[in-house]
Structures are given as structure tokens and as C-alpha cells.
């Protein structure tokens, strides 16, 4: 046995012991502090329930006012079209002013009006139907418009078919398939997407605040004079939050699968692996921000703007990146959350598509290594 080896082994053991002691100390602190319980357990649960039960981007049973100025067979047919549609809950209203009052009071989201000469002009082939939508929520308004058009077009087609049989001629019909989400349920992407929010919150937000607090109070410098090395302190600080973050991921996976019946098509192992990668990226970001700013309030605000907001807005979690302007799409390429969301959506809904998984995971790994190195540099530099 060479002397070098004989001294290295006990040194490694001492290092491991020191790190373990730090982890235990930090872990106890995390467990005892009610605020880490709030953010590690209460917040993930709350997000899961809110996204799973309260928030829905699916448009259905939209209340609308239906104004029929003069009853006729054709008008009743259009009305029946709206009543049968799962997207609308029509309310018959006697006059236009009444309907407008309902819309101003936000009791209905739209008005469909069949004018007095509807039946006569429908026979001539130039009837006009007015659709008014309350468009303050533009997205909802557009979907309502599209569905209303479809409901009216269908009843028009029915009338045409009954009226002139073969003379009506053929038309192109759309037959659509929704791959990976045949249930057309917005929970299918909202609940898996939550994992990105929870990891960002615990990994980046929590870590940056905890570490900034140590700097603010000067306890970091105090630790530096002990035999503990700076990277050991960082590992000790961060490990409990890493565990907390993985707990959040597990919570999301279990509730997605069993509470909301979201399928997990890919392998759990890959899912766990890429989640760890993204958690590492988040933790490293939090460390870097806090070690460079050294102020709790500032670190928390910067972390929110630099990690949480992009994870919510620029990751493709809710808002599809294929529709945003080019400049925003270019910015989104430097947002790590974007790669993770792509991984999540694919692993949950499509399966182990390696041509998606490998490049995205590789990117996350590179970012994690770079950020961790930078965070270490920032910590060391501040010592001098």
C-alpha cells in the first residue's frame, strides 16, 4: 500500500462524515421550519388540486343568449343545434336589449341573434346570423366563435340536405384525430407540467433564499473558518432541498396517475432521471443567484423573474411556443424549463421517444454542469 492511498482513504471518510453531519443539521432545520413545510408539501398539494380541479382551459357549457326575432321552423332548427351542442347552454331571451343587459352583467358570454327575416332569407340562401361575443377574454371568445360557427354550419347543412337532396352537392368534411390525448382533456398536460413549477420553486426559489440568508447573516463566513470546505457546505445545504424536490415530483406523478388518470406512457425510471437533472439545474441556478446577490429579498425576486416566470410562461407548459413571435421563441431556447417540459409532455403522453429524450436531456446535463461550476466559483470568490 502506498502512503498516498493510505492517507486518502481516511480523508475521504472524514469528508463524507462532515458532509453527512451538515446534511443532518440542515435536514433538521428544514423539518422544523414551518415555512419549508409550507413550500415543500402544502404548495405542491395545492398546485396539484388547483390545476387538477379548478383550472380548466376546456371550453364547455358556455352560457349564451339566443334572440329569435320571429319564430320559424328554420330558426328552431338553429336553436336546437345550440341546445344539443356540449359547448353551449343557450338561454332564450325575448329581445336584443335584454340580451345585451345579460352580457354586460357577465351572465352570458355571447349573443346569437336570428333576425326577423331569417326564415325567408334562408330560403333564398342569404340569411344572416349575428354572433356577439364578450371578448375581454380573447382566447375564450375565439373558441366560442368557432364553435358557434360550427353549430350553425351544421344546421345549415341539415336544411340544405333536406331542402334540395342531391342538388346540394358534396362538401369537404374534416375528420380529426387527437394523438396522445384522445380525451381532449387539458389536465393531461397541466398536471404533468406542474412538475416543472414545483421543481423550480423548491430547487431554485427555496435554495436561493436559504443560501442568501446565510450570506446576509454572515453564518456562511463563520462556517468557512471551520475545517468544512465550501463545496461541502454547499452539498450539505442543498441536499435536503433536493430530497424535498424529488418528494414533490413523486407526489405529482402519483396524483397524475391515480387521481387524474393521466397516462404515463414512458418509463418511470427515465422520468425520474430527467427530473433529477432539471432539479440539479434549478438548485444550481438558486445557488448562483444567492451567492452573487447575498440578499434574501433581492435573491427571491431575481429568482422569481429568472426561473419561475420563464418556467411558467416560456416553457411551453401552458402557452405553446410554436405560436409565439420569433424573438420570444429564440429567448425560450435558453430557458432550461423548456427542454424539461418537452421531456415531460413526451414521457407522460407519447412514450419513450428517444429522438426527443436524448437531445433534451443532454442539454439539461450540460446546463447543470456549467451552472454548478459557476455557483462554486461564485462561492469561492466571495471568500476573498
Amino acid at each position: 500500500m502506498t502512503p498516498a492511498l493510505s492517507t486518502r482513504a481516511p480523508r475521504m471518510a472524514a469528508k463524507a462524515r462532515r458532509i453527512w453531519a451538515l446534511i443532518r443539521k440542515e435536514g433538521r432545520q428544514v423539518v422544523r421550519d414551518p415555512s419549508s413545510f409550507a413550500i415543500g408539501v402544502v404548495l405542491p398539494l395545492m398546485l396539484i388540486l388547483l390545476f387538477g380541479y379548478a383550472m380548466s382551459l376546456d371550453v364547455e357549457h358556455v352560457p349564451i343568449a339566443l334572440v329569435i326575432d320571429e319564430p320559424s321552423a328554420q330558426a328552431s332548427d338553429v336553436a336546437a343545434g345550440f341546445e344539443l351542442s356540449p359547448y353551449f347552454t343557450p338561454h332564450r331571451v325575448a329581445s336584443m336589449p335584454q340580451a345585451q343587459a345579460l352580457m354586460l352583467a357577465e351572465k352570458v358570454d355571447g349573443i346569437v341573434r336570428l333576425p326577423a327575416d331569417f326564415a325567408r332569407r334562408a330560403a333564398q340562401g342569404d340569411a344572416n346570423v349575428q354572433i356577439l361575443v364578450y371578448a375581454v377574454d380573447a382566447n375564450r371568445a375565439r373558441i366560442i366563435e368557432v364553435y358557434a360557427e360550427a353549430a350553425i354550419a351544421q344546421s345549415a347543412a341539415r336544411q340544405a340536405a333536406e331542402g334540395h337532396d342531391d342538388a346540394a352537392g358534396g362538401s369537404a368534411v374534416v375528420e380529426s384525430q387527437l394523438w396522445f390525448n384522445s380525451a381532449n382533456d387539458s389536465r393531461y398536460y397541466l398536471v404533468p407540467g406542474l412538475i416543472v413549477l414545483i421543481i423550480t420553486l423548491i430547487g431554485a426559489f427555496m435554495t436561493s433564499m436559504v443560501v442568501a440568508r446565510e450570506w446576509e447573516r454572515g453564518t456562511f463566513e463563520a462556517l468557512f473558518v471551520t475545517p468544512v470546505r465550501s463545496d461541502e457546505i454547499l452539498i450539505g445545504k442543498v441536499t435536503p432541498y433536493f430530497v424535498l424536490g424529488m418528494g414533490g415530483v413523486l407526489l405529482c406523478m402519483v396524483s397524475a396517475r391515480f387521481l387524474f388518470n393521466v397516462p404515463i406512457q414512458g418509463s418511470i425510471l427515465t422520468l425520474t432521471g430527467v427530473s433529477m437533472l432539471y432539479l440539479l439545474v434549478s438548485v444550481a441556478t438558486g445557488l448562483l443567484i444567492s451567492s452573487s446577490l447575498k440578499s434574501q429579498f433581492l435573491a427571491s425576486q431575481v429568482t422569481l423573474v429568472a426561473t419561475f416566470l420563464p418556467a411558467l410562461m416560456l416553457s411551453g407548459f401552458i402557452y405553446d411556443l410554436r405560436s409565439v413571435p420569433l424573438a420570444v421563441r429564440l429567448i425560450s431556447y435558453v430557458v432550461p424549463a423548456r427542454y424539461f417540459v418537452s421531456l415531460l409532455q413526451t414521457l407522460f403522453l407519447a412514450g419513450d421517444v428517444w429522438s426527443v429524450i436524448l437531445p433534451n436531456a443532454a442539454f439539461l446535463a450540460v446546463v447543470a454542469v456549467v451552472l454548478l461550476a459557476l455557483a462554486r466559483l461564485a462561492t469561492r470568490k466571495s471568500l476573498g
Partner: protein
Amino acid sequence: MWDAVRRVVALIRKELLAVLKDGRTRYMLMLQPVLQCLIFGYAATLDVSNVPYAAFDRDRSEASSALLAKLDGSGAFHRIVNLTEVAQMKRLIDTQQVLLVVQIPPDFQRKLSQGEDAVVQVIADGRNSSTAGTALGYVGSAVDSFNADWRSDHGLAPPPVQLSPRAWYNPNLDTRWNLIPALIGTITMMSTLMLAALSVAREREEGTFDQLLVAPYSPTEIMVGKAIPAMLIGVVQATNALLVAQFWFHIPFAGSFVTLYIGLILFLLAAVGIGLFVSSIAATMQQGMLFAFVIMMPFSLLSGLTTPINSMPPVIQDFTLINPLRYAIDLSHKVYLEGAGLDRLWPDLWPMAIIAAATLSAAAWMFRYRIE
């Protein structure tokens, strides 16, 4: 009385100095609303525009090219590839290169000419089902428009019914018009709530709370002195967001600024009340900040900012009644887009006043309770 005012003014000055003495924090507080407005304004669209699709035209006829031209011309789609075999379809969708594949069968034109219905098959990537749904809606409109053209070109009767849609308060259906005014309240709530939550916790952590207690201040004066600085910063942030809305995004302001600011001040009172209450229970700054965040999360998700309140389950809708942000967003929409006056805003104003009164008195009670 005059003495009390002087004392409170001194406390406000001290409080503003404590927050704003750090130049980086000053920049952060001023820039944050602008950054958030820009990120949200450009990224938060649920509409589809220019999304990539693939066409698999197995007919290669006049009719099929006319249909694809309709899709290309809709502005919603942009064709990146013409497929030649079925096998390519799966790979393109799996790797998220295209959102849609439109497949036109070989007998498309023949069937139409014979007066039969012809099927256009559309496959959409449902990993984000709402984008996919919106995109399918656009395909439907493009096909309707193709049908109308086809019929008029071939001497058939046009579809008997035309539609004239009109959108109130947002004629071009621009998502930004909805979002940016709503952000005025959301952004300011975030900061004022956090600042208020930190204000007392900071004194506790730095050990200056005891000094404050022995100073000649009544608990109410301390509260006022802590509330006003956070509100002042909130008003400045709201103004920044408003400036971005008007001068960057050019969203026309239909109402009166006085009305908007009256509503905002009432809202900020409610937000500060919640923040001070959090502050009175938090032992450290970290706790204050995290509690504030945990409260802020459901408030912002259940405010109508991202998803409409009336499509939430009834229990949750009842919960939103205690959410001041819900009223603030409704109020800023009504003033900003609809030009509503105070008379129409009453249903938003009184709940915020009640929330402010309740949280502020709860916070005051907690202070007194903790002091004694």
C-alpha cells in the same frame, strides 16, 4: 394629532430607506413590472399563429391544392413539408416538428365533383390539447371557406346561412388586451404583499423590533407606517405597468385614470392588509416571504388571469370571493377596456374594502396581541 402624523411620516421615510437604499433592489422593483408585462405580453397567447404543419396530398388535384392554399392563407398555419408516404407522419408528430398533419385522400376531387362528401383527415399533436383544439377550429374554418368557394365555382347554391360575428371590447380578439390590464393588479399585488410581509419580519430578524416597541409609537401608527411605503411602491409599479400597456403595446385606454387609481388604492390596501397579517405571524424574513408566496399562488391562479372564473367548480368560485385580485382584475378590465365609471364598479369596490378592513384589523390585533 400633528405629532402622530410627524411620527408616522418619519417611520415611512425610514421604511422606504430600508427597502430602497440598495440600488439593485430599486432597479428590481422598477424593472420587474416592465419585464413581466413584456414576457406575458409576448408569450402568453393561447391562439395559434404560424404553427408548422405537414401536408400529405394524395390527390394532387385542383381541389386539393385549393384546400391547402386556404390553410396556408389562414395565417394560423405554415406548411413546412409535403409528405410522400404515411411512415413520415408519425416521426414528424412524435418529435414535435409539426402540430398537424393534413391528409387528403386520392379520391378527394372525384368525390366532390360527384356531389359526395369527401373526408379530409387531420391528425393533431394533443400533448397540449388546447392548442390542438384551437388549431382544429382553424382547420374547420378554412375547410368551410373552401366549401363555399367550391360551391360558387361549380354553380351550386351557396351555403344558406352567413355569419356576422362581432367581438365586444376587443374587436381583433387580441389576447394582450385581456392580459396586460389584468397584469397591473397581479404584478403590484405580488410586490406589495411581499414587501408588507417582510417589513415587520425584517425588524424581528435584525432585532430592531424591540427598539420600535419602546419608541413612542402606538400599534396603529406602526401599522400605518408599514402599510403606506408598500402601497407607494405598489402605485409606482402599477404606473410602470400602465405605461407599458399604453406606450409599448398601444392598448387603448377607454376609462378614466382617476377611477382606475381609486380602485387600485383600495386593492393595494387589501393586499397590504394580507401582507401585514402574514408579517405578524412570521418569525423570520424567510418565513414571511414563503408564506406570502404560498398565499399569492392560489390568489393569482384563481383570479381569472389565466382561466375564466365561471368555468371553475362552484366551491372554488365561492373561494374566489375572498380574493382581492379577482376584483382588481375585473375592475381594471372594466375601466381599461370598457370605460366603466365608478357606478358600474361598485360590485368590485365594496368587497375589496371589506377585505382590506378585515385583514388590516386582524393584523393590528395580532400586533397588539404579540406585544402584550
